[in-house]
C-alpha cells in the first residue's frame, strides 16, 4: 500500500520532470527571441493580472462574507447562496459572454444609445472590455467565491464567541472587524485567494479573448502556432515558477495557523438590521457580483442559444460533443477518484510519514497550470506511444498508430494529475471524521484490512466519494487548456468547440455548448449552497472547514 502510494505520487509529478527534459533540449535558436520579445511582456502581464485579481477577489470575497455575517437584511439568506452562483461560470465563458454583451453593436451599448438618444457605433465612451482592466474585472467576478466561501465559513464557525468577547472588551463594530475578524480570517482568505490565483494562472480562454498575453496564452501560441515545443516548455517553466511562488506565499500567509480556536459552542454574533440607505447599499453590494458574474452572462447564453436553436435547430454535432465530453470526464473522474482514494487511504492505514508526503506531493497537480502539465506530459507520452506502436507492430504485424494520445488516455491521465487533490482531499476529510476505533473494532471482530475497507470504510465514505466525484467531474468538463492541447485529433468537447467558435468570432454558435457547461457547473454550486444552509451540521463538524473537503465530508 505504501509502495503503491509512493509510485502513484511519482506518476503524478512526472509531468514536471518531463517539462524540464523538454526545456533542456533547447529551442533551436528561438530562445533569444523568446527572452527578448515574448517572456518579459508575458511575465509582466501575468503579474499585473495576478495582482489585480488578487486584490479584487480578496476585497470582494471578504467584504461580502462580513456583510453576510454581521448584518441582517431582507433576502440575506438567498444572497448567501446566490453569491456562489458565479462558480458555475468558467473564466472563458464569462469573458465570452461579456465580450459580446459589451460589443459596440451588442445589447448593452444599444440600450445605452437608445437611452441617450445617440446613433452610431463607437461614439459612446464605454471602456473597452478587451483590456487588462476588463480581464481583471471579469475574472474577479467569477473567482471571488473562492475567497467568499472559506471566509464566510470561518466567520460562522469560529468568530461568534470571539466577536462577542471583543465587544465586551469595548471594541466597536469597526474595531471588531479590523482587530479580530480580519486577522482571524487570514488563513481562509489566503487559501481562497491562492485558489483564485491558481485559476487565473491556469486560464487560457478569457485572457486570450480579452487580448491579455499571459504566460499560459504564450505557451499555447508558441506550441500550437509556432510548433516550438521546447520554447513552450521554457515559458512553462517560468509559469511553473510563478505557481510555486504562489504556493509559498500562501504557506507564509497561513503561518501560525495552528491556533484553531477551541470554541465549542459558537453563537452567531447578533447581526445588525440594516435600514434605509445602508440597506440599499447592502443590497447593491450583494447583487452586483451575482448579476455580473452569473445572471447577465447566463441570460445572454440562454437568449443566444434560443436564437440559434430557433434559427437552425440544435447544432448537429452537439450530441457528439456532449458524448465526448462526458466520456472523457467520466474516465478522468474515475482515475482521479481511484488515485485520490489510494493516496488518502494509505495515510490512514499505514500512518507512515512517507504516505503523508506522497499525499502532499501527489496533490500538487492542482497548483500546476494546465498548459504546463500538458507540455510536461508530452515527452514521456511520445516515448511510450512509440514503444507501444513498435510492440504492436512486432506482435501483430500491423501499424497501430499512437494509442495513448489517439485514444484520449493521455488526457485522462492529465485530468487525474490535476484533479486528484480534490478527491484526495475529500476522502481525507471523510476519513478524519471516522474514529480510528472503528478500524480497531472491525479488526477485533475478525475482519481483515481489506474487509474493514469494504464493510466499514467504503459504505461510510460513500457520501464523501460521491461529492468528490461530482466536483471532479464538473472540473474535468469545464477544463479547457489541457483538453485543447492533449485531445485526440478532431475530437471536439463542449469546451474546445466553444473555444473554436470564439476564436473564429462566431459567438452565437458556441452559446449552446457554453450553456450546457454552465448548467452542469450549477450542480456542485447547488450542493455547496445546500450545505451552507445547514449551520447545525457545520457546527457539529469538529474540523475547521476548507471549502472543498468540508463540502465533500458533510454531504448526505
Amino acid at each position: 500500500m505504501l509502495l503503491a502510494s509512493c509510485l502513484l505520487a511519482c506518476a503524478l509529478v512526472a509531468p514536471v520532470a518531463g517539462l524540464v527534459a523538454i526545456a533542456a533540449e533547447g529551442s533551436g535558436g528561438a530562445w533569444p527571441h523568446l527572452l527578448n520579445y515574448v517572456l518579459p511582456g508575458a511575465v509582466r502581464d501575468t503579474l499585473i493580472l495576478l495582482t489585480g485579481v488578487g486584490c479584487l477577489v480578496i476585497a470582494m470575497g471578504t467584504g461580502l462574507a462580513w456583510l453576510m455575517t454581521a448584518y441582517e437584511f431582507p433576502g440575506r439568506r438567498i444572497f448567501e447562496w446566490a453569491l456562489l452562483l458565479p462558480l458555475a461560470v468558467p473564466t472563458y465563458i464569462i469573458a465570452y459572454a461579456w465580450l459580446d454583451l459589451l460589443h459596440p453593436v451588442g445589447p448593452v451599448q444599444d440600450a445605452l444609445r437608445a437611452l441617450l438618444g445617440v446613433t452610431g457605433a463607437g461614439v459612446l465612451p464605454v471602456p473597452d472590455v478587451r483590456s487588462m482592466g476588463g480581464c481583471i474585472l471579469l475574472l474577479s467576478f467569477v473567482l471571488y467565491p473562492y475567497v467568499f466561501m472559506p471566509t464566510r465559513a470561518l466567520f460562522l464557525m469560529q468568530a461568534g464567541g470571539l466577536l462577542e468577547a471583543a465587544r465586551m472588551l469595548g471594541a466597536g463594530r469597526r474595531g471588531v472587524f479590523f482587530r479580530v475578524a480580519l486577522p482571524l480570517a487570514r488563513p481562509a482568505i489566503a487559501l481562497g485567494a491562492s485558489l483564485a490565483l491558481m485559476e487565473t494562472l491556469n486560464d487560457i480562454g478569457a485572457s486570450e479573448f480579452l487580448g491579455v498575453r499571459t504566460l499560459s496564452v504564450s505557451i499555447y501560441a508558441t506550441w500550437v502556432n509556432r510548433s516550438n515545443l521546447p520554447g513552450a516548455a521554457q515559458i512553462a517553466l517560468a509559469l511553473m515558477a510563478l505557481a510555486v511562488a504562489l504556493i509559498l506565499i500562501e504557506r507564509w500567509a497561513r503561518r501560525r495557523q495552528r491556533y484553531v480556536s477551541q470554541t465549542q459552542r459558537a453563537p452567531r454574533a447578533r447581526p445588525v438590521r440594516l435600514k434605509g440607505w445602508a440597506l440599499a447599499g447592502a443590497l447593491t453590494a450583494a447583487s452586483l457580483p451575482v448579476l455580473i458574474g452569473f445572471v447577465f452572462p447566463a441570460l445572454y447564453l440562454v437568449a443566444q442559444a434560443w436564437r440559434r436553436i430557433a434559427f437552425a435547430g440544435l447544432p448537429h454535432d452537439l450530441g457528439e460533443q456532449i458524448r465526448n465530453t462526458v466520456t472523457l470526464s467520466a474516465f478522468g473522474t474515475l482515475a482521479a477518484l481511484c488515485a485520490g482514494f489510494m493516496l488518502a487511504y494509505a495515510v490512514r492505514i499505514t500512518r507512515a510519514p512517507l504516505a503523508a508526503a506522497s499525499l502532499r506531493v501527489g496533490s500538487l497537480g492542482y497548483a500546476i497550470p494546465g498548459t504546463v502539465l500538458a507540455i510536461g506530459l508530452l515527452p514521456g507520452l511520445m516515448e511510450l506511444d512509440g514503444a507501444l506502436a513498435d510492440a504492436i507492430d512486432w506482435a501483430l504485424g500491423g501499424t497501430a498508430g499512437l494509442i495513448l494520445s489517439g485514444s484520449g488516455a493521455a488526457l485522462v491521465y492529465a485530468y487525474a494529475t490535476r484533479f486528484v487533490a480534490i478527491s484526495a482531499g475529500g476522502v481525507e476529510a471523510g476519513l478524519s471524521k471516522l474514529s480510528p476505533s472503528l478500524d480497531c473494532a472491525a479488526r477485533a471482530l475478525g475482519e481483515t484490512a481489506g474487509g474493514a475497507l469494504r464493510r466499514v470504510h467504503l459504505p461510510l465514505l460513500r457520501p464523501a466519494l460521491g461529492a468528490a466525484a461530482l466536483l471532479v467531474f464538473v472540473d474535468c468538463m469545464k477544463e479547457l487548456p489541457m483538453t485543447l492541447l492533449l485531445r485526440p485529433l478532431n475530437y471536439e468537447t463542449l469546451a474546445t468547440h466553444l473555444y473554436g467558435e470564439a476564436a473564429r468570432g462566431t459567438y452565437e454558435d458556441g452559446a449552446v455548448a457554453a450553456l450546457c457547461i454552465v448548467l452542469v457547473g450549477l450542480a456542485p454550486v447547488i450542493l455547496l449552497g445546500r450545505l451552507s444552509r445547514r449551520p447545525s451540521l457545520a457546527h457539529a463538524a469538529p474540523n475547521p472547514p476548507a471549502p472543498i473537503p468540508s463540502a465533500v465530508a458533510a454531504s448526505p
Partner: protein
Amino acid sequence: MTARLEIRDVHQSFGAVVAVEALSLTVEPGEIVCLLGQSGCGKTTLLRVVAGLESPDRGSVLLGGRALVGPGLFLPPEQRGVGMVFQDYALFPHLTILENIRFGLSRLDPAKAQATALQALERVGLAHAANDYPHTLSGGQQQRVALARALAPRPGLLLMDEPFSNLDQRLRERVRGQTMELLRENGATGLVVTHDPVEAMLIADRIALMQQGRLVQMGAPEDLYERPGTLFAARYFCDLNEIPGVVRSARASTALGDFDAPGLTDGPCVVCIRPQALSFGAQGREAVTINRRFIGEAQLIACAVEGLAAPLEARLPPGGAPVAGGSVRLSVAASGVLVFPAPGRG
C-alpha cells in the same frame, strides 16, 4: 468601580420559545450572585441580556443607577463597562496572552496599557507566559487569562458563563478558589451562571434559582438548601427520598410515620427525607437492607420498607455496616424532612 445591578421585569423570547419571563433581581455592590438552573432554563440568556449581547423584548437593566437597556434604549455591549468570562474563554487565538489582556485597554495610552496588562497578568501568576499564544496554555491557565482580561479594564460588573465547566474535577476546585479570591480582592460585583448547585453554594453570596425562564427562589445558600420554597428547589439541591403522604390538620401521615406539615392545606402531599436524616437504631420502622455502597467519607445504604414502592436511601457515617439482607430499624430526624403539596395540586 463596583456597582449595583438591577434587573427589572425582563422578558426575552426567541420565536415561540420564551427564554426569560418577568424576571427581576438585584445584585448589591461587591456581591456575587449565582444564576442556577438546568440547561435551557434561561440563565445564560439573562446573562447575555445584561451583557448587551441580546436585546430583551421588555424590561430594563440598570448598572450603578445608569440604564443599560430600557424602553427605547439599548446601550451596545462595548459601552456598558461590563466584563465577561466566556464558557470557552474566547481568547483571541491570533494575539499573545499580553495582547489579549491589552485588547480591552485601548483607551489608555500605550505605556499605561502595557503596565496595567502586565500587572493583571502577574496577579494571576502568568507573567512568564506574556508572549505565548493561547493554544500553548493549559485549560486552567487559559481560564486565568480570560479572567485577567475581563478584569483589566476594571468593569463595574463581571459576568461569568459556566466559567469552570471546561476544567477537570481537581483543577476546577483549585481554579475556583483562586478566581473567587481574585474577585473578592477586586471587590467586583459578579453574576455567575452555573448548573452545579454545589458550585453555586461554594461561590455565591446569594443564589438565584431559575426554572423555565422564571426566578423560582433567591437567597443565601443556606436558605435555599434548608428552606426550599418548592419541591423543584428542594430536589435541585439534594438527592431526596420522596414518599407519598396525606396532610390532615398540618400533619402528614405516611408509611414511615407522621411528620409536621406546617401551613399545608389538607390533601395529598410529598414528604422528602434527606438521606442523611435516616439512621439505624433500636427503635423505628422495620426495614430490610438491600445493598451498601462505600464512598469514602460515607456509606450509602438502600433499604426496603413495607408499604413503600421504592427503596429508601440512607447516608451514614462509615463503619459498623449492616449486612445486606439484614433486618434493621429505621428512624427519621425531623430536621431532615420537608413536606410539599403533591405536584399538580395548588
